[in-house]
């Protein structure tokens, strides 16, 4: 198949590194550093006792979302620039569906479990058969 590559206007594919070799390498190294720091904090938060216990899980989820952002920006090069609009819109729609599915499922299933009019031992998920 012959390809006629014309100069690109206004769009870049996701994951395409920048043009300048130094800046693109630095981008990956910064991303790696931030991801390592966030991972380290996650493991520290999970094992320390100096943080209020019930808040730890929320903190871990926040750290995970932050690290996903780091991966998107520094590894997949999703930016807020005008040449990235299509990539960002697709990502936004994907994130919307992901949150709808996850929060919707967890919410509904937790309520159904609470509202099941069954004997107390059946109410305990730990004793339910798979």
């Amino acid at each position, binding site marked *: 198949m012959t390809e006629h590559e014309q100069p690109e206007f206004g769009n870049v594919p996701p994951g395409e*590194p920048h043009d300048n070799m130094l800046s693109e390498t630095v981008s990956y190294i910064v991303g790696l550093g931030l991801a390592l720091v966030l991972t380290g904090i996650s493991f520290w938060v999970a094992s320390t006792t100096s943080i209020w216990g019930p808040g730890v899980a929320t903190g871990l989820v926040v750290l995970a979302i932050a690290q996903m952002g780091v991966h998107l920006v520094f*590894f997949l090069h999703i930016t807020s620039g005008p040449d990235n609009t299509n990539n960002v819109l697709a990502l936004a729609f994907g994130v919307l569906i992901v949150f709808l599915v996850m929060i919707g499922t967890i919410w509904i299933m937790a309520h159904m479990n609470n509202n099941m009019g069954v004997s107390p031992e059946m109410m305990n998920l730990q004793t339910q058969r798979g």
Partner: protein
Amino acid sequence: MTTGTEAPAIGLTHMGSEDTGLGNRGPQSKSIVVPYGFWLFVLSDMVLFSALFATYASLVHATDGGPVTSQLFDRTTVAIETLALLISSFICGIAIIAAKRENMFWTQTALFLTGFFGFVFLVLELTEFGHMISIGAPPQRSAFLSSFFTLVGCHGAHVTCGLLWLGTMMAQIWAKGFQQHIMRRLLCFSIFWHALDIIWVAIFTIVYLIGTLP
């Protein structure tokens, strides 16, 4: 797909009109369209994983008297797995940089290291699965374990496919050089590989770290 000389597909341009909202240049070239389409696939893959995460979160306490999360997971193994996958993802980016400069040695070296760290991750994960099955925590033990093996196993299956794809890409770059269609495939592979690392971030947080909280 239209090239620059053919008439563009119907609906994509309005001949003679300056303001169409789609531009008057016709569709974007394949080097834009193909990775964008692959990006849509990766996002739909994340939607698939979100369903598996939701299943896991719903069933995590349904242990049927069997082993629970805090008895099964080892944080040290997970930390090494996380590091291996992160380094693999990073080196994959280096491989793309080298490939853009058409440097065969560094491209192949970086791709090999990408695959090596991916393989380390996979071996650790399969060892963990084998250990769990051997101590009486196979997928059929409880709903929690079924959903665990589905979620983490699905990610592992993606990594396995990624490794096969990676080997194919190394062979194609070796045999055909840095042609445009090969470079498109390589870019798609890197999108896939980075996306797997993003999904792993969610897995190690939700399954392993939150699962082993005191």
